[in-house]
């Protein structure tokens, strides 16, 4: 539809959503961890803004709350924790180049098209202006998964995971103007705990294989000759 | 025909016919040897020689191997008895034979099988190499001969719709002289089987010991005295039995329907004639043929089996009597 027909508020929402999608691509392509963390923080901020604006547009108050939660969690807390971890594990300088950047970005574009194709009929019977955001949020979710597939760095994978969460939140906001509060809180709690656990695992993995390259976490393969395995009952 | 007309006559016929065959068996063997001798331009032994041999053996002491079990001593009596019982189910002179109801053609073959079973065990009993060899070979021969024999009986039984020997003979008589392909095949098969079963040339050579190809004699090697006599007599009886079987099944003409003395006399004459001719033929065959190597024997018997099968099939295909 023609954006010009929309009120300014909705136009802004669309713009922000588009920028969130862009940040997803940025995350996908970003090789430096610290930079990636920053990008992730920005994505969180954009999503939070979308939530706030939608709340403004529709005027239901609890969207402000969830926007606030997102802001604290995805923009402040998690990036801060990741930063601490990266510093503690001295990974600032570490780069994690993609094997096939062009291919990856192409796949990302394909995913965007695909998610639009999937979401179109869904969005079709919704009337609200923000319906096309559904496609974008779906794209962000899938891009997050794609990122987890292509990134070998544990931290990067966590970022992908969190990006998925962002996409989910965006979807919730855009399509349904937010989930019921209790669910929001539950989700937020889970994300927080998950983040803490991720932190624990970084340390454990670092201790056990002295690196966060998860491709080296593959001794549980099942070679045909033998499960080369220890004997811990 | 009612089996229970006049019990005494039946009992007599059931008693006398096998005894007659038993008495005639050595004579038949002697006759064959005699004809053979003549064909080979020898004078040959007198016809009563086999009787003399038997009498001598009965009179001599019997030596039993220390390694043998009681079965070794029991076997001759059982083998002799089983063969005689088998002979008892065979109508020779009169069709009025109650014992045909006791055991039909299949049971007859079974009884011969019983005799062979015991004979082979006896051969194994002493634990001597020759005995084992004879036993093993005897089982090889019987493995092929017995099915062929059964098939022959099947062919005839399917024509007669009965396995009762008297009824089979009766059917053949009633039908008169009919040329049946199945009968020709069956006859050929039966002749081959008879040669094999009775251990005649070219399957076995009754006249030799120590020849590596011996079968029947190998099993009797440890026997002596009365035991040997019984075994030999049983073998002769078996030969006569097969001859009589051939006669009964394929050319029964002349056999008496009742107990009329005249008919019986005629039957006896006819039987003697037929057996004589058969014996002469066998002698001729043994003169012109040579003893086979053991492993050509299965081929020989497969031929018999094949002939019998052909007889059966040709009966089903050509003479389907439905």
């Amino acid at each position, binding site marked *: 539809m023609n954006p010009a027909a929309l009120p300014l508020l909705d136009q802004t929402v669309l713009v922000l959503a588009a920028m969130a999608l862009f940040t997803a691509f940025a995350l996908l392509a970003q090789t430096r961890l610290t930079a990636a963390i920053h990008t992730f923080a920005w994505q969180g901020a954009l999503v939070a803004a979308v939530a706030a604006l939608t709340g403004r547009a529709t005027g239901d108050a609890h969207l402000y709350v969830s926007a606030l939660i997102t802001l604290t969690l995805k923009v402040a807390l998690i990036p801060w924790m990741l930063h601490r971890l990266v510093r503690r594990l001295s990974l600032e300088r570490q780069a994690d180049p993609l094997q096939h950047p062009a291919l990856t970005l192409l796949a990302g574009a394909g995913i965007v098209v695909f998610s639009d194709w999937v979401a179109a009929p*869904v969005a079709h019977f919704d009337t609200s202006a923000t319906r096309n955001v559904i496609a974008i949020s779906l794209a962000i979710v899938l891009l997050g998964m794609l990122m987890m597939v292509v990134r070998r760095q544990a931290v990067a994978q966590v970022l992908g995971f969190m990006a998925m969460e962002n996409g989910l939140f965006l979807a919730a906001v855009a399509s349904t103007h937010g989930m019921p509060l209790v669910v929001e809180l539950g989700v937020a709690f889970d994300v927080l705990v998950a983040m803490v656990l991720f932190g624990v695992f970084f340390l454990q993995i670092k201790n056990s294989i002295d690196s966060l390259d998860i491709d080296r976490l593959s001794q*549980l393969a099942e070679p045909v000759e033998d499960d080369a*395995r220890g004997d811990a009952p | 025909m009612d089996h229970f007309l006049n019990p005494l006559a039946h009992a007599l016929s059931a008693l006398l016919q096998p005894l007659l065959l038993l008495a005639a068996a050595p004579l038949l063997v002697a006759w064959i040897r005699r004809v053979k001798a003549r064909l080979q331009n020898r004078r040959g032994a007198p016809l009563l020689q086999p009787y003399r041999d038997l009498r001598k053996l009965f009179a001599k002491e019997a030596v039993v191997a220390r390694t043998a079990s009681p079965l070794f001593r029991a076997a001759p009596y059982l083998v002799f008895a089983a063969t005689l019982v088998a002979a008892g189910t065979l109508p020779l002179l009169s069709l009025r034979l109650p014992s045909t109801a006791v055991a039909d053609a299949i049971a007859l073959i079974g009884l011969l099988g019983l005799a062979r079973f015991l004979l082979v065990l006896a051969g194994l009993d002493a634990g001597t190499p020759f005995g084992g060899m004879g036993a093993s070979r005897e089982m090889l021969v019987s493995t092929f001969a017995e099915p062929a024999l059964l098939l022959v009986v099947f062919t005839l039984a399917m024509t007669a719709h009965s396995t009762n020997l008297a009824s089979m003979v009766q059917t053949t008589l009633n039908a008169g002289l009919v040329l049946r392909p199945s009968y020709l095949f069956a006859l050929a098969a039966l002749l081959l089987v008879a040669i094999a079963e009775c251990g005649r040339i070219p399957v076995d050579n009754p006249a030799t010991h120590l020849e590596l190809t011996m079968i029947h004699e190998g099993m009797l090697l440890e026997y002596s005295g009365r035991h040997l006599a019984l075994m030999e007599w049983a073998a002769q009886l078996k030969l006569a039995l097969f001859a009589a079987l051939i006669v009964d099944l394929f050319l029964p003409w002349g056999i008496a329907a009742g107990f009329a003395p005249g008919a019986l006399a005629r039957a006896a004459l006819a039987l003697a004639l037929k057996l004589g001719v058969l014996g002469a033929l066998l002698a001729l065959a043994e003169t012109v043929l040579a003893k086979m190597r053991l492993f050509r024997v299965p081929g020989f018997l497969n031929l018999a089996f094949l002939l019998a099968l052909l007889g059966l099939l040709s009966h089903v295909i050509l003479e389907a009597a439905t």
Partner: protein
Amino acid sequence: MNALLLTVFTPLAGMLLLGTLRSARVAGWLNLALCALSLAGALWLAADVLAHGAVAGDSFRVDALSVYLVVLTAFVGLTTAIFSRPYMRYVHEEKRVSRGGLRLYHSMYQGFLFTMLLALTTDNLGILWVAVEGATLATVLLVSLYRTPAAIEAAWKYFILCGVGIAQALFGTVALYFAAQHALPDAAANGLSWSALYAVAPRLEPRVMSVAFVFLLVGYGTKVGLVPLHSWLPDAHSEGPTPMSAVLSGLLLNVALYAVVRMKMLTDAALAHSATPALAGHLLMGFGLVSFLVAAISLQRRRDIKRLFSYSSIEHMGLMTFGFGVGGPLATFAALLHMLVHALTKSAIFITVGHATHISRSQRIERIRGLIRTQPAVGWGLLIGVAAIAGFPPFGIFTSEFLLLSATMQAWPWLTIPLMVGLVVAFAGLFRAVQPMVFGAAPPGQYPVRANMLPVILQLALVLLLGIALPGLLAHWLDQATQLISGRHLL
């Protein structure tokens, strides 16, 4: 309602309590007591539900389907706690887990039970999601309890894969909510209440519902262990402490499958009049059959005993999924019954496996030998458990497989052939591995251990009873659940 609170929140309290408790000895017993208490509550609850139908409260709803799983969960939780008390002591004495680790274990054990029970009793799909995610969070640290590299790796995979899966499930939930908003007047209030949605399901938008179902299926299916989403399962089962494997196989998979079934019910109702009414059923059948066959094949030539049995779990979950997919009262009844007997048998087997690995100090199959010679109770327990899980009568699994096969024979005759082949292959894989472990001479220097076979005997006896005579009460109970799911009574 009190029964419900007692059942669900006992473990919650237990989690906090055990988290603070220092003495390992007391912790073990307390763990036991709490499970027993929770089981008592569950039975009470079941009595309530069977007496006066579904118990519903603010965002709680317990009907025949859930209460039967609640009782099962509490029961297996109890028996496993009985086993884990001495077992964890032994592990502790082996210096493989620190005192703190032990405390974490007990606390998280209760936490896990809490999430399971919450997921089963809640009516709010959002809370259901939160609970299932919580189950992951509660168990992931237990998988890495031994701190070996393999354990950490397994835990990481478990965490990542299930996390991603659960995220997809959340997207599905959002889509569901999205659909609800256009069907429900007061979506904001109870737009995620399953019962409310089920009531208006026919008015839910089919397209949205099918998209939602795909996400939910992939999401919760990851936790069910459906192929190809199953990869985390063998690792997590084989590396975690054995009691954990028992409850994972016996409970977590069931609860995830329960979520899938709930979603299927909604989707079926919503798609009833669309172009593809049986979409959900067909998807489930496909996933179920693939999982069943792949797992059956993967059972061949295993080297690790716990991996072996985790693949067997995948196989049986596939069978149940297939059964629910076939639909119809008979198949549904069979699947429900299978859920029950499989949970009982499999947790019993894992308990025995725990003892077996304890005896031979290795979980490599070629090092476990001559169990019957060393400790007949363990050997026979393992052998009989495997015979039961392989579907031999007179054990209950035979009954459910018999019903499932006959239902398939009625609905999809030709699908019985892959089922049959799969069963044979799975049997071969199990027995060629188990036979050398239990039979034969015992290797030198292998001694019996102090094993508490009570739970195993209890559970196998139950399975045996279910195989010989299905009690009328239980049948009636399952039949109510069947009626809920398939809409028709079987009896």
